[in-house]
């Protein structure tokens, strides 16, 4: 009976996986490259790019993520752009996480010794070649710990989308709890988040090991 209930609740909650994982992976796929672009623009020598990206980062880090989700979902239609709730969530999350990743990448890039640029420069590498082949690969190793932090935060931030009516893992669990007056579903949801965090922690530990072949 008890086991049956857990099983049935779990199956119901599984439906929430689609939203949670969909948002999680879409956010990473868009925000990591966008974050890198923003970081490169932020450190470029063009003042206009510095100002634009500086403002972008300030706005996106300076307001609540949920507010940004609301803005995209409820606010953009007023400007003529109506998105379904999943697309709106992905857009808001990707823009928000890109701002955080941009700052992580920027500090990673700026932590690389000036001598690396100089030796690449005297060997005749262009700025783009230097960034792509020398600086960014070394940056990746350095930013793995803070990126891992953000990615783990993202797993849990996905729960914010209940605000625009998406049925993610937590929202599904909440519906079951309200229906059955039984908090088992919450526990199942907690186990789900913990398992994901454990997997991500494992993946990032492997990545760090993979980059441990050199030290600077």
């Amino acid at each position: 009976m008890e086991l049956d209930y857990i099983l049935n609740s779990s199956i119901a909650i599984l439906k929430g996986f689609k939203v949670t994982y969909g948002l999680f992976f879409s956010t990473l796929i868009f925000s990591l490259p966008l974050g890198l672009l923003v970081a490169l623009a932020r450190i470029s020598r063009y003042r206009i790019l510095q100002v634009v990206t500086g403002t972008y980062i300030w706005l996106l880090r300076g307001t609540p993520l949920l507010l940004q989700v609301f803005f995209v979902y409820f606010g953009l239609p007023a400007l003529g752009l109506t998105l379904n709730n999943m697309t709106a969530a992905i857009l808001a999350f990707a823009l928000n996480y890109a701002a955080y990743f941009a700052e992580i990448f920027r500090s990673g890039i700026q932590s690389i010794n000036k001598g690396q640029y100089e030796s690449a420069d005297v060997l005749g590498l262009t700025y783009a070649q230097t960034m792509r082949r020398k600086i960014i690969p070394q940056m990746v190793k350095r930013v793995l710990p803070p990126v891992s932090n953000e990615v783990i935060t993202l797993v849990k931030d996905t729960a914010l989308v209940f605000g625009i009516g998406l049925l993610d893992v937590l929202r599904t669990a909440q519906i079951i709890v309200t229906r059955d007056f039984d908090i088992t579903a919450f526990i199942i949801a907690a186990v789900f988040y913990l398992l994901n965090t454990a997997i991500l922690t494992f993946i990032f530990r492997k990545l760090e090991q993979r980059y441990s072949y050199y030290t600077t």
Partner: protein
Amino acid sequence: MSILKAHNISKKFKNLEVLKGIDLEVNKGEVIAIIGPSGSGKSTLLRCLIRLETIDRGSIEIDGQPMVTEASDGHSVYASEQNIRVLRKKMGMVFQNFNLFPHKSVLENIIEAPIIVNGLSREEAEAIADQLLQKVGLAEKRHSYPCELSGGQQQRVAIARALAMNPDIMLFDEPTSALDPELTGEVLRVIKNLAEEHMTMLVVTHEMGFAKEVANRVIFMDNGVIIEEGTPEQIFDRTQHPRTKAFLGQILRS
């Protein structure tokens, strides 16, 4: 034949004038040692010659081609980026702190620029790299990473990396200053071998024994100017200049 000619170059950092009208002509095959107290502008001079820093006044010619010329008002005007690229390819530089690429193996450190800048095939580049590794005595370190090497070995890789671009002139900025004393010999030996092959070199160094033995010409700099230049004998044994004397006296005492 002159391979590098700098005329009246001046360089300021903010209000600090670091080079105050330097004239320098380097002939093919010459080995020039640049000595002088810390802060006298030796590194800045090398960095200006290879355009890691830009000069404010004066002109620089590489192999007869202007890299930067002096306008009528005295200010320096640089050639086009494209022309500068061509001229800079004639120069190689070795830094005090080696600046190897830590995420790349010794071999990759050496072959990357020849492949992506000079357009060599991987096989050609590897053949050159192996030859150079042999020359600097590190053939067996081909697949090592910089962090697995001693400072002396890293610096020898850095020399091989610069040589792989087949430069006409090599600039060394205190190549042994970051090394433990017992490791300087192996690096100096490599530079000495290059001198014997008539590689044109400008070497900023505090190794007076090395300068005396290897250089054709010694330049003594202080406070942004060339105080004196001459053969090693003229500078080390017969200088009449009080500042050169004071500097050499201090070095010998320490």
